[in-house]
């Protein structure tokens, strides 16, 4: 049975008194993947910041289930490989160690480098460990970053546009991997504007509809992957 990890009730998130996005009800549990879909500027990042606790709600509640046990949720983050600054001298192992270093004093990872190497091995990229990160392909870079994020043993993993810039094969390989980890119990949140990818991985999708009037927050609709697929298809037919 899935354990509820995060619950959002009637919450509005925003900055400087300006509401950006409003959610009536949203849940995230173990072995579930929540897709976050919406056009640019609809408040996807703001919603994720709110759900993960980086942004306090202007109204409503965000409940992290493990707060009662005084064990904060371990939330991992997979950055977009395109946002990585490649002029920094670093190997694939250095890049994969980023997530673990975030939770260590001075960033030293010490013996936990073994965890990173083990996860790289599981993802079949351990042979890339000493290669320059900048010299890897987009798909390899994304796998390296994913291995790092997973090595930190997160309870919830947030992925920001994970398939952006990847070719078809790399995208499918990554999606298969993500499905595998969800099946093993990991809770995921995937931010994407690629509906096809979200439909393949997510159990439910938070669809952000931008407000019609200025100053109003975007509205979040929770839909099934099938419903999103149909809506996209209808919209494509209309345009066609």
């Amino acid at each position, binding site marked *: 049975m899935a354990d509820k990890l995060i619950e959002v009730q009637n919450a509005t998130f925003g900055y400087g008194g300006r509401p950006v996005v409003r959610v009536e009800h949203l849940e995230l549990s173990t072995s579930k993947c929540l897709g976050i879909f919406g056009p640019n500027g609809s408040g996807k990042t703001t919603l994720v910041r709110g759900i*993960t606790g*980086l942004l306090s709600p202007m109204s409503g509640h965000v409940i992290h289930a493990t707060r009662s046990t005084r064990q904060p949720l371990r*939330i*991992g*983050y997979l*950055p977009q490989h395109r*946002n*990585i*600054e490649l*002029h*920094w*001298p*670093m*190997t694939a192992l*250095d*890049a994969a*160690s*980023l*997530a673990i*270093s*975030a*939770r260590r004093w*001075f*960033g*030293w*990872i010490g013996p936990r480098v073994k965890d990173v190497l083990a996860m790289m091995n599981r993802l079949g990229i351990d042979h890339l460990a000493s290669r*320059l990160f900048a010299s890897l392909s987009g798909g390899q870079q994304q796998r390296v970053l994913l291995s790092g*994020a997973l090595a930190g043993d997160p309870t919830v993993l*947030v992925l*920001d546009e994970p398939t952006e810039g990847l070719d078809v094969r790399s995208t499918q390989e990554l999606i298969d991997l993500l499905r595998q980890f969800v099946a093993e119990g990991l809770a995921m949140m995937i931010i994407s504007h690629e509906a096809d990818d979200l439909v393949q991985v997510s159990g439910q999708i938070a669809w952000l509809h931008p407000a019609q009037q200025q100053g109003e927050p975007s509205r979040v609709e929770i839909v099934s992957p099938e419903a999103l697929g149909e809506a996209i298809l209808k919209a494509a037919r209309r345009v066609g």
Partner: protein
Amino acid sequence: MKMRVSCIYILAVLLVICVCTLSLAAPAQTTQSTQQVDQSTQDMLRELSGVSASQPATMPSASAEQSSSGGFEDESATAIQWKRLIGLFQFMLLTAAAVGVAGAVLGLFVLLRREALVALAIPQVVAIGAAIGMRLGWENKLPPALGVAMIALVYFALSRRRSAGNWIVPAFYVAGLCLSFLIIANHGQDVEDLQRLFTGVDVAVDAKTALTSVPVLLVVALLCALLWRRWLLLAQAPAAAELAGLRPTRWDTLFLLLLTIVILLGTNALGVVMVLSMLFLPAATVLPWTRRLPSAIVAGMVVSLIFLAAGFYFSNAMRWPLSQSVGGIGFAVLIISQLTSQLKK
């Protein structure tokens, strides 16, 4: 493409050779200029060793032993001269080495984090503080310089947090250049002192300055080097850092603070040129050749010390000002390093 790079490479080498040859060919002129600019160093040397003030400061008895072909001395004399020179300039060399080590470490992250403009602006801001100290007639210029630098640091950090316009840092740069001189306008000696602070031509460090600066610089360098994974994380995945409970703005402020300390102490002891040379040149020289940050840090430190040794050698052998010698040699090596790395690619 390779052909073009080869041509630039050859031109750069030729340029370095030309500069060296011209300096060797005109020892009399350079001696004169050195005598003009190094007056206080000469005074210090006179006190320390009883050498005539008419002789150039960086080479106490050079004129008698100078060969007709250039500024170099004969072999036996050179050995004695170098020992003696190193002894006389030990505090300056020690401080410059510490500035080199700290500058190489901080400079690496300054370049990678694209904060070069901030690093250029801070010395100008420090100069405002130094000018205030001069105007008030204070012996120690460090407290006012520290005060002004800290105010600027807080302002930089706040403006970054609020994502304020990118006019702030360049405006501070210009303000530093202008206000520092306006504060001491019509005070002849102070103007000369401030010019010296900017150009770093006349480098003299006393024991007290060295003993206060060197340990702090080395601690800052060590701290910055130990935190290499933190700087890497903040640059590559600030959201991951935030989710792990870190505050990126606070870490950014810490980095600016470390940078300010190095620039402040370095400028106070050695002048702006030496500090900026050590900040940018060793790091930029080693970056194309390193695969990881730890190796870049170590290589940067070693290269900065080589630049200092080479600069010290050339400044004495060819009667060049020290800071400019370090900067000039560093720049030439940097160009060669960059071009060679492009050729290799």
